[in-house]
């Protein structure tokens, strides 16, 4: 593997670390598996691509975050005000977003960003800027989770019974958490669109699991479970995952098989505690 390939793998890893940070907020902090992600990732990419095409790359990234936030608000609304099961709420939003995303892209299944200014053409240190973005976002989240609002958000996912009987409005926390989570997811989509000079309406497929895979690999390396280490796990894990992915490609595993690999990896890792228990019972 050449340095260039490794560098590219890490750059993509850093882009996906933003995705993992988003998934961390919904999956680990709020404790809901949120499938909005597969839709909102594309929404971020689409919004960012359209803006970039029109000569506003920075605004594009900002708007992708905002658009993702709105996607999250919709899912939170379905969950809290319409009492729809969290998983189904995410699937509904994701399904609806497919149409919206196509509209954002004016009906075209993909947008190519050729000869347009982007974050990466304007700032030449691609790796550096991505590292900076990822770390700054991680720190911002860390600080946020240490504030009173951040603490309330974490408590809502950690013990809903308790928070319900406290003066914290659980619904408000779900709105906030889902918006934040999908904002990060969509920003990741926006960054990827500019990085690849390309946005595709099917680009979000499997992103929830991909984000999760990053978290899980990171957590396998960093064993501490505090919020700070959790966020660091996301960034490290997403980069490691991408490196593994690249190595697998080098060994001739086709890129199209990678979704299967991620799914198997996540399924296995999540069930390890249970499998261990089974084994202990057998031994006993």
């Amino acid at each position: 593997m050449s340095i260039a390939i490794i560098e590219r793998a890490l750059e993509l890893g850093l882009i996906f670390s933003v995705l993992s940070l988003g998934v961390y907020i919904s999956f680990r902090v709020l404790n809901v598996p949120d499938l909005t992600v597969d839709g909102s990732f594309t929404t971020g990419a689409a919004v960012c691509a359209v803006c970039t095409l029109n000569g506003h790359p920075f605004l594009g990234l900002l708007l992708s975050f905002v658009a993702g936030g709105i996607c999250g608000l919709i899912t939170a609304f379905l969950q809290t005000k319409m009492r729809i099961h969290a998983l189904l709420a995410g699937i509904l939003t994701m399904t609806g977003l497919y149409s919206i995303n196509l509209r954002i892209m004016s009906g075209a299944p993909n947008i190519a960003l050729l000869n347009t200014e982007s974050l990466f053409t304007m700032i030449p240190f691609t790796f550096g800027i991505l590292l900076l973005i990822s770390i700054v976002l991680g720190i911002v989240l860390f600080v946020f989770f240490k504030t009173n609002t951040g603490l309330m958000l974490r408590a809502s996912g950690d013990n809903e019974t308790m928070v319900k009987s406290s003066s914290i409005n659980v619904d408000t926390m779900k709105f906030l958490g889902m918006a934040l989570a999908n904002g990060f997811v969509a920003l990741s989509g926006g960054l990827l669109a500019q990085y690849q000079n390309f946005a595709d309406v099917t680009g979000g497929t499997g992103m929830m699991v991909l984000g999760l895979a990053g978290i899980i690999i990171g957590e396998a390396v960093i064993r501490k479970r505090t919020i700070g280490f959790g966020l660091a796990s996301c960034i490290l894990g997403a980069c490691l995952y991408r490196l593994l992915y690249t190595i697998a490609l080098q060994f001739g595993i086709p890129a199209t098989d990678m979704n299967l690999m991620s799914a198997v990896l996540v399924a296995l890792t999540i069930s390890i505690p249970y499998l261990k228990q089974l084994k202990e019972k057998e031994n006993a």
Partner: protein
Amino acid sequence: MLELENVSVIFNKGTSLEKVALENLSVKINDGDFITMLGSNGAGKSTLFNVITGALKVNHGKILMDGEDITATKEHVRARYIGRLFQNPEHGTAPHLTVEENLALSYSGKKYGKFSFAVHKQDRAFFQEKLKQLDMGLEDRLKTPIGLLSGGQRQAVALMMAVLNPPKILLLDEHTAALDPKSAQKILEITNELIRKEKMTALMITHNIQDALDNGNRLFILNEGRLIQDMDQEEKSRLKPADILNYYAV
């Protein structure tokens, strides 16, 4: 301070599973009352608490707090002046947050505002001083995730959290039932002390008749959704545990 007027709660109304959990219950709770509450399983004690906190809507009747009708007030709004502790220690604290973060959750928001850091240096000393009162060595474990503590320790912290911003009324739902006898006694002592110190009004559900007689200044006995006994200090002090059993037999 707290008044219930003809409150009824009916579950699954109009179906074959219809269950009247509270039936036309009226009661007036005075400032500074510490009421213990007995009643068989399913008598409606927890339901009464749920109605007071707003976790459950009433089918009929009104709830007044200091004269103000709060029947339609949302649960999280009422929580500003109603504190609650559950039987299960796991319900009262957030397991992955540290001891100090849990305490900050019920303390810091009001003091510093929503976007300030939750745990401040000067609060640590204050938290430690509060935890010292519990005499469980928790003052040295501020940074421990609370899920790693024992049930009794968790319940003690939950109790502390409930009174950091003293509520107008504290509801204790068998809050010592899941603890070993020694921890239970300890938590009960702390409860009494906190209620006295903060001059709180409190209601305590228990299945321990002796505890019900030994604590508080007033006793409720609930049966099948109705308040069948409301005794003051004097009547209560004359009672023996055996007398109470009669009320269960109904």
